[in-house]
């Protein structure tokens, strides 16, 4: 099957235009917008909660639902970042730097319009990157063997830890914990059991979904309950009116170079496994500041619209970029992609060498759904900015029981297994403790997914290389990844010595 087979592409669009598909797409987009606007409840939580409900759907419908969520969360996450100085999702953190000052100046609508449009355009550019990669995936798949997978896993774990700035050491500790959790169960290479303590439930290790639901959704709810009150305590909703929002929509086109550059950084960083949108957004922001005219630089942090456009373009473009390693290698580009990966697997779609050749129809459905959902999310955000901001004022006494009920039902219904509920609760408490003591949680899901990949590909590399790891050093592709790993570490060391940590990512 040719990657750019027009019949397959047309079929995907026809599938998307079916009534059921559109319902799922709108549903996914709306859920994504709601979870995006609620701080802490990003796309990862939304996807994790939706998995059990997608189990009985056709794979195509499930993918459409999930694409709706993934394409829309970063868009609405900008609304609270701008209005309430609270990023709706971690990648929106950079948007607060100039978005909130704009809102304080009564230009919240302008900022939201610019953010929503930059998100939509960035998302489209990211997808174009993904489409460009589709025809050469076979070559990429054959180029990347176990030694490269091993190095990519190392790169993922290193970069995600570095992205947490001063919390680098704590982040590594969380990653190590994730690797230990991931090592529980039957080991496919040696054929032996590890840390199962004779318990049958642990034979296959901890399941990704109950762990994710607990670690992200339940822990946030415990935290919110402990704090009481509402998600947001202050904010200026009045500054949002449609006229101003529409004016803002034109800004990303006026600043088209910034929008394009943001998208390029987003897709590039997104395609690096384990790095994700937060780093992409901060890099795009930093790049916009450093390349601005000297006389304009002072305006950043005080309400420069460019400071909203650059990170928002980047954090939506990263979806397309992040899908490349997720689909072609089975290596998730972010925590959200890690959960999406489990959706694919649960629906019998094996990412990696197979998916681009055997499930091309699904890939095109995913691409089409991402495009439409991205545009739809931008339009809905523009039209309903003031209303969705009010969601953050729902009292925790109402919000927490509802989300917890969804979490438990979701976890149980996956396999009708009560132990999954216990797992969810246990990891909810663990996640809360990590939050409470300032451990960045982002490296945990990546370690769970990348840990086993790292171990298996290590053993495979030894097997292929006659008992040595020489293959890590004698192929151009592995050398490039090694250089990237070294570059990331050097970049971190340089910055942690010379500059202030202000403005670094605040992933938690």
């Amino acid at each position: 099957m040719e990657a750019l087979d027009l019949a397959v592409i047309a079929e995907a669009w026809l599938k998307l235009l079916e009534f059921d598909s559109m319902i799922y797409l709108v549903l996914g987009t709306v859920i994504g917008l709601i979870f995006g606007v609620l701080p802490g409840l990003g796309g990862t939580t939304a996807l994790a909660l939706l998995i059990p409900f997608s189990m009985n759907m056709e794979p195509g419908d499930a993918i459409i639902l999930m694409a709706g969520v993934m394409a829309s969360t970063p868009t609405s996450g900008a609304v609270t970042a701008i209005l309430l100085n609270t990023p709706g999702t971690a990648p929106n953190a950079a948007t607060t730097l100039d978005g909130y000052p704009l809102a304080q100046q009564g230009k919240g609508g302008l900022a939201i319009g610019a953010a929503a449009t930059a998100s939509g355009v960035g998302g489209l550019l990211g997808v174009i990157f993904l489409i460009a990669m589709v025809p050469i995936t076979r070559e990429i798949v054959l180029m990347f063997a176990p030694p490269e997978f091993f190095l990519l896993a190392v790169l993922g774990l290193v970069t995600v830890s570095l992205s947490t700035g001063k919390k680098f050491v704590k982040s590594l500790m969380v990653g190590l914990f994730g690797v230990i959790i991931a090592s529980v169960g039957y080991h496919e290479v040696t054929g032996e059991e590890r840390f199962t303590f004779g318990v049958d439930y642990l034979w296959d290790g901890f399941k990704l979904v109950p762990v994710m639901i607990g670690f992200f959704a339940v822990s946030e709810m415990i935290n919110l309950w402990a704090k009481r009150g509402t998600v947001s305590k202050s904010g200026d909703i009045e500054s949002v009116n449609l006229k101003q929002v529409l004016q803002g929509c034109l800004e990303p086109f006026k600043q088209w170079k910034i929008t394009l550059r943001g998208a390029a950084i987003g897709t590039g960083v997104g395609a690096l496994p384990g790095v994700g949108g937060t780093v992409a957004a901060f890099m795009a922001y930093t790049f916009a500041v450093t390349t601005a005219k000297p006389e304009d630089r002072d305006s950043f942090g005080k309400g420069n619209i460019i400071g909203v456009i650059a990170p928002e373009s980047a954090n939506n473009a990263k979806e397309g970029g992040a899908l490349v390693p997720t689909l072609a290698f089975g290596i998730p580009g972010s925590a959200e992609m890690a959960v999406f990966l489990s959706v694919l697997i649960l629906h019998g779609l094996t990412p990696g060498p197979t998916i681009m050749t055997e499930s091309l129809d699904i890939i095109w459905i995913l691409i089409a759904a991402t495009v439409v959902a991205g545009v739809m999310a931008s339009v809905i955000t523009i039209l309903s900015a003031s209303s969705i901001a009010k969601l953050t004022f729902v009292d925790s006494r109402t919000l927490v029981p509802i989300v917890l009920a969804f979490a438990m039902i979701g976890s149980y219904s996956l396999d009708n297994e009560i132990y999954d509920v216990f797992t969810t609760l246990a990891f909810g408490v663990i996640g809360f403790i990590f939050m409470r003591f300032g451990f960045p949680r982002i490296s945990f899901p990546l370690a769970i997914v990348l840990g086993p990949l790292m171990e298996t590909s290590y053993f495979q590399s030894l097997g292929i290389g006659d008992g040595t790891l020489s293959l890590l050093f004698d192929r151009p592709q592995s050398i490039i990844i090694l250089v990237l790993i070294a570059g990331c570490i050097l970049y971190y060391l340089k910055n942690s010595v010379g500059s202030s940590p202000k403005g670094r990512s605040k992933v938690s």
Partner: protein
Amino acid sequence: MRFLTALVALTIGFVSPAQAAFPEKNITIVIPYGPGGGFDTLTRKLAPYVEEYFAKAAGKNYNKIKVVPKNMPGASGKKAAVYTSKQKPDGHTVQIFNIPGHGLPYIRGDKDAGYDIESYSWLNRVGGDNYVVIVSKEGPYKKLDDLLNKPTDLKIPEQGPGSTSNMANRITWDTFKKGGEYIYGYKSSRAYSTAVLRGDGDVTMLASGSAKRYNKGGDFRILAHWADEIDPAFPDAVNGNDVGHPELHNLGLLRMIAGPAGMSDELVTEWNKALAYAVNHPDIQAWSAKTGNPVKAYDSAAKTKEVLMQNLGYFKQFKDVFAKK
């Protein structure tokens, strides 16, 4: 009137006890693996036709009885096998088994597997296949002898110890006294065949149906087909007769359906017929021909058990081979 009703009920019950009692609720076919694989696909494909057969038998409950495939992945199929063994032998829960995969404890003589493969009520075969030896077309191996003459051990990408294809590989290379170095950890047959294509290893083995599907682009060369008749899709292949080892044709994998131990003879017979009805349905036969998923059923449950034990008996000869890591 009440007397008449009772008499009619009694007569129906007396004449056809199995049909009156079964099926009285939905039927579950347990799939020991996750969605999307070969076992899942075949079971989901067969389920509506099994339902069609039983719905007729159910009479007044015609529209109420459903045959529900249920995925229960875990512990390489062990979780489902243990679950099924603990269900009531009333015919409402059965399972599709992977043979010889599920028979590994029997083959090795492990006593603590949690289930006994011999004890289930064996109902019918639904599918099965035999093996091929597969290499990359661009690699140095043009015929089986090239592999056997390689001065060093063969490198063989594989899923893991205990997988069905790993058993096929070990028996094949042991037969030719050729050493193999196994590279484990590839998640699926597609993944380890791609590994061969990429040059991670020299050779691996696939079920012939999978080999046909994966070789649509002509990337592979199939050097041997362990079957009495070589499939015309494999023009470069030899079989066991050609290399003096016809016994390798026993290296088959079977997809069989069984219920918990102690199902009544009537239930076993009904199930045998239902599965034969589904497998021989023209829709299933057409699907099988189109997709290269071989299907086959027997006309008696006794024959099913006989073939099962034959297969396991063949693998049991190689008990020591499987003890090797």
